[in-house]
């Protein structure tokens, strides 16, 4: 155990300097093309400034630095009030890292640069209407015909699907009852004939969710990541990444959200209520722990993205997100009836304990894999 090195402090200082001069000052548009262009332009600016992919290998356009520096960069993004990855999140988080771990050299060369510079938006296609927590029961089917996969079926809950051009898709190539043994992870260009992306409006008023239909969609076999029939292990690494360092930026933002809510509470007088102040104190301790867990995740001997300790961290911070938002509602008082950024956040955060495996499934995994309790 030791403190930040002087090199780490120096990295933080230069990051802070660059962000002070470069974080967009105009507000992020709420939706549509303007929103997409805003997110893409911000990623582009980071890329051109040399600040994209801090811990990505240099051969894929990254900086090739340590996970610790990646966490420091995320912290400085939060400090600076910089926009989140948003429409680019799936690519920059789980898809990009999945390709780095499991993709062929050709796939890495073809896709990673476009993910990192923000020019190509990705989404994930895992869940189906009948395959949620029981992901291995999924039914979207792919037949091998010559050197192509022919895909039929549908996917749901694809975040930013309406904005995406590419998709990381999990399909069944084995017999219907083959469960996790008969799955394949494949890259699909959503402009391919037979693909139909339909937005699904969500409880927060957004239309960033989508269902995707596949009607005889033909995809080259070269797009298979890993091997045919080995998609489950690729998907597991994707799911593990959803609990790893890549997602730390939104976790670290919790502390700043809470500090902003304190200002709201002070301005409205709500903070004078001792119960509100006490709840704030408790949440302050909890959000501080998020930062501690972020640094622990990248400490020596920790397994990084696939570390099982990431499970407890993820479960906790996802539920904490909802506690912070609920505190926001309490602080707003009767203004909570109004739709604004805090009520939006409160609604939006209901997905925190569903996406990437529900909190119930996370508890099963902690109990069975870490504590070795029987299934």
């Amino acid at each position, binding site marked *: *155990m*030791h*403190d*930040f090195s002087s090199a*780490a402090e120096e990295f933080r200082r230069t990051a802070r300097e660059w962000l002070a001069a470069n974080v967009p000052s105009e507000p992020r548009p709420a939706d549509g093309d303007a929103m997409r262009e805003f997110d893409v332009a911000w990623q582009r600016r980071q890329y051109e400034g040399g600040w994209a992919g801090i811990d990505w290998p240099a051969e894929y356009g990254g900086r090739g630095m340590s996970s*610790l520096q990646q966490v420091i960069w995320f*912290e*400085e993004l*939060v*400090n600076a009030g910089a926009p989140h990855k948003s429409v680019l999140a799936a690519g920059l988080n789980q898809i990009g890292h999945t390709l780095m771990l499991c993709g062929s050299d050709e796939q890495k060369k073809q896709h990673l640069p476009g993910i990192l510079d923000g020019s190509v938006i990705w989404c994930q296609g895992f869940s189906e209407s009948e395959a949620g927590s029981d992901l291995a029961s999924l039914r979207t089917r792919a037949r091998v015909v010559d050197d192509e996969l022919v895909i039929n079926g549908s996917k749901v809950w694809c975040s930013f699907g309406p904005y995406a051009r590419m998709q990381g898709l999990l399909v069944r190539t084995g017999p219907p009852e083959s469960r996790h043994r008969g799955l394949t992870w494949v890259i699909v260009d959503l402009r391919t004939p037979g693909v139909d992306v339909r937005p699904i409006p969500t409880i927060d008023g957004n239309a960033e969710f989508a269902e995707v239909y596949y009607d005889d969609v033909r995809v080259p076999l070269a797009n298979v990541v890993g091997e045919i029939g080995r998609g489950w292990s690729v998907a597991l690494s994707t799911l593990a990444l959803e609990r790893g360092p890549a997602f730390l930026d939104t976790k670290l933002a919790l*502390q700043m959200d809470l*500090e902003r809510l*304190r200002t709201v509470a002070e301005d409205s007088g709500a903070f004078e209520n001792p119960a509100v*102040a*006490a709840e*704030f*104190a*408790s949440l*302050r*301790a*909890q959000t*501080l*722990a998020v*930062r*501690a*867990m972020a*640094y*622990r995740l990248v*400490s*020596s*001997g*920790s397994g990084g993205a696939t570390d099982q*300790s990431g499970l*407890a*961290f993820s*479960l*906790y911070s996802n539920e904490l997100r909802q506690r912070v938002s609920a505190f926001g509602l309490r602080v707003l008082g009767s203004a909570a009836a109004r739709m604004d950024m805090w009520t939006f956040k409160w609604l939006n955060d209901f997905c925190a304990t569903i996406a990437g495996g529900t909190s*119930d499934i*996370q*508890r*099963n995994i*902690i*109990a*069975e894999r*870490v*504590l*070795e*309790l*029987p*299934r």
Partner: protein
Amino acid sequence: MDLTPTSEQKDIADSVAEYLSAEVPIERMRRALDGGSLVNDALWKQWASMGFFSVAVPESQGGLSLGLIEEFLMFGEFGRHLAPGPILSSVLATQLSVEAGAKELTARLVDGAERVGLRVGGTGFDVTPGGLVLSLSAEAGVLERVRSAEPVPSIDPTVALTEVEVGAEVARVHGAELQTRQWILTAAVLLGLAQTAQRQSTGYARIRQQFGKPIGSFQAVKHRCADMLTRCYVAESQLRFAAVAVSAGHSDRRVQAAAALQLALDAARENTAINIQNHGGIGFTAEHDAGLYLKRAISVQASLGAPEQWTSVLRAPALKEFE
């Protein structure tokens, strides 16, 4: 920033853990509870010679010249093994004495000639008549001579509770830094209690059979065990971060320590309580150790005094950005 202890940092804690399992097991403590003292002078002296009270004391004054990291890792073992006696207050008193420049007193504390209880208002924790007692606030850390200590019933049978009156003041320092240290070391003890409760529950859930299968296969039990582990992980992470912040003298060290204390306290109170439920009827009996951990958690909490001391730090302004 690295939050993984090195093997050198863990050395002391590992040897203390080994020693406590072999020499001060809970069964031995249970025998001592039927009359007799839990920690007699010989045992206290032995602990002194093992360096329990002098980990962070400079070598020139008889200590090991190590730091808060090694010390809090050791206190985690005290919590895990339910170590009895006023170890925490004696270690803090030694620190106070070093800071006050009371070399003679430091020497007596380091070699175990004095043990120091803790006073919160009129209540004494493991106070010995004629001995020394520590009281702590943000304003001051004070060592006083005990004038009288009348036993009162203690919820925790491994802690001697008294109504205490004090006489002459022996030493005094400014309180904030010492109190911050108290928060870190107390958090370590509480985390140890929470971790043992978690291990007891998980172990029992694996072997206890009902309806023809281990109760750990039922989600109601399995999820409680997962939550116990998560509480420990959260509290341990914050404790490590806070200990580094205090060691390095960061400007936010006090709020970091307050957060570590609050989370460890939550983990200890919740885990030791749910541990009773996970064990069912046997957990409710005096025979099972689960009750001892439950009671120690509440006793340690009471020894901290008013929660306002650290919750006021937690709700203070500032924290504009990470440092």
